[in-house]
């Protein structure tokens, strides 16, 4: 028996960012356990570890590793940016938030890091086993993070709901995977792609069942429309920075994993109705997400429904996997991370009992009391609604243009119409910020240096991508080209 081929040269360079985060997380929990007095230091240490991880991307070796199960390439590096960015923003926002709530702990950041490792595994996995292991690592970290305010009933309830839904969805994904394994005789995505590329492959009902199960499971994780009801409840109950992180990063990881799977299935997709299912999920998400968001007064619930709609837009690009589609999804996730975490960041600074909902009334008149924080929220809202010159406009434009070019004009039209409707509820937030008188017993905004830094990163990033998107577009297109060239 020969084991050496499993370890290629430079394997350690291939997983360097993951290693940094794994070891960093372990260091943090041990630091927390052995030096409970220095607990407030864990936040800054976590930021340093995340920056180390971003820096270690420079040494990453490109190629296929571990016996063809792990692929590092341009597109995984683009998605790594999203994951690390979301991790850093969430860490910065949490440092102050946890301090205020009195629940500081190294475990929080450690779980955030391990969750990020899970997402990196999902993005880089070239084997369904790796993708599912990454997904599970991520899910288990999320279960704990959601319930981190364990004295708060809502936090526990959010954790419970996500656990039930998540475990349920995992069952579906695994069952679908098992059926795919039986049909295509391998769990390796490249081998599956060769099997699907065979011209006399027949689409058995078994394969369709497998696909439906897989899409149902991933639909749960993405909060796509018929599978979305957990999202508002979970976001409302979760610690706010975690809710922001949850609404961004795991979706990006799931999308890149789905891109790989869809790309492998590419040759058979025209003869099946599978993409019609995905198209319906996208349409339902956009319509339900945008229309229900209008009725929400709770900010976190509103952002949850807006997130459902945003995933709907991203799913449009998935309908035809080509270079532009992959690149537009990559850019959309980066911009989405910036704007959504920025919005959740401002909400996380509302100093009130976290068991109560944070509603529009809490931010009334904020524009005159705390100009910087109000500006940050307003910029994020403009970007989410897709108005120029923000990054949200650029990425949304790119998504819809890709969809039209691939011949999905009808769906793109629904996307554009619903996204125009969405401007109403995004700008209502801005209206409350600047046009409303602040109510009696106004809610204080409590933000330290870290959280303010996170908001600054968001604003700068949104405008940078909005005004000068070309370099990012070129990088993403080239990375997508390399991914699909195989």
């Amino acid at each position, binding site marked *: 028996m020969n084991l050496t081929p499993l370890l290629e040269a430079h394997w350690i360079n291939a997983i360097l960012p993951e290693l940094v985060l794994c070891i960093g997380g372990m260091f943090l929990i041990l630091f927390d356990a052995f030096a409970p007095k220095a607990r407030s230091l864990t936040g800054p240490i976590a930021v340093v570890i995340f920056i180390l991880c971003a820096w270690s991307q420079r040494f990453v070796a490109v190629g296929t590793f571990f016996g063809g199960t792990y692929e590092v390439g341009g597109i995984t590096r683009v998605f790594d940016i999203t994951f690390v960015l979301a991790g850093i923003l969430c860490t910065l926002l949490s440092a102050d938030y946890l301090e205020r709530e009195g629940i500081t702990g190294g475990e929080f950041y450690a779980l955030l890091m391990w969750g990020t490792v899970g997402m990196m595994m999902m993005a880089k996995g070239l084997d369904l086993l790796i993708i599912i292991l990454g997904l599970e690592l991520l899910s288990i970290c999320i279960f704990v993070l959601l319930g981190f305010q364990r004295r708060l009933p809502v936090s526990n309830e959010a954790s419970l709901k996500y656990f039930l839904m998540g475990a349920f969805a995992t*069952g579906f994904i695994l069952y679908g995977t098992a059926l795919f394994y039986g049909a295509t005789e391998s769990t390796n995505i490249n081998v599956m792609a060769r099997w699907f590329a065979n011209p006399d492959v027949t689409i058995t009902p078994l394969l369709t069942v497998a696909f439906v199960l897989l899409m149902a499971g991933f639909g749960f994780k993405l909060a796509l429309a018929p599978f979305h009801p957990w999202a508002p409840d979970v976001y409302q109950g979760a610690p706010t920075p975690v809710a922001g992180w949850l609404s961004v990063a795991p979706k990006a990881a799931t999308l890149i994993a789905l891109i790989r799977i869809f790309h492998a299935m590419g040759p058979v997709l025209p003869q099946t109705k599978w993409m019609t299912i995905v198209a319906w999920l996208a349409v339902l998400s956009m319509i339900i997400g945008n229309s229900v968001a209008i009725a929400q007064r709770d900010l976190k619930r509103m952002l949850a429904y807006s997130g459902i709609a945003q995933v709907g837009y991203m799913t449009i690009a998935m309908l035809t996997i080509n270079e532009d589609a992959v690149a537009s999804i990559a850019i959309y996730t980066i911009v989405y991370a910036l704007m959504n975490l920025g919005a959740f960041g401002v909400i996380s600074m509302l100093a009130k009992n976290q068991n109560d909902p944070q509603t529009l009334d809490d931010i009334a008149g904020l524009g005159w009391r705390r100009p910087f924080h109000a500006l940050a929220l307003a910029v994020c809202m403009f970007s989410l609604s897709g108005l120029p010159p923000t990054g949200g406009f650029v990425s949304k434009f790119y998504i819809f243009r890709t969809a039209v070019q691939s011949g999905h004009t009808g769906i793109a039209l629904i996307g554009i119409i619903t996204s125009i409707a969405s401007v109403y509820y995004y700008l209502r937030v801005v209206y409350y910020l600047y046009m409303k008188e602040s109510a009696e017993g106004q809610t204080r905004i409590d933000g330290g240096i870290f959280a303010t830094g996170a908001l600054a990163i968001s604003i700068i990033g949104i405008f940078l991508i909005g005004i000068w998107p070309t370099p990012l577009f070129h990088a993403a297109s080239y990375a997508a080209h390399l991914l699909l060239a195989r």
Partner: protein
Amino acid sequence: MPEIDAWLMLSGTIFTVGLVGVIIRRNMITVLMCIELMLNAVNINLVAFSHRLGSLEGQVFTIFIITVAAGEAAVGLAIIIQLYRLRSSINVDEARELNG
């Protein structure tokens, strides 16, 4: 050795039992057990396919699923303990503060 169809039916049945259990049962521990049942149905499937195809991938997959399921069960138990401490009950319907 039964045909692959028989194994698929067995796993399909177990999966359905787990699925229905998750939906209709209200006791958290039972729900947890039903989720485990769903994952074990997947394991049967994988091992059956692995046997038929003569490839080891399915069995490796199974070992990982077993451990993943254990991790999930442990976190689930932790959530249930916390639910019990907060509400002195492990009925899923007790958790209904978030509604919209």
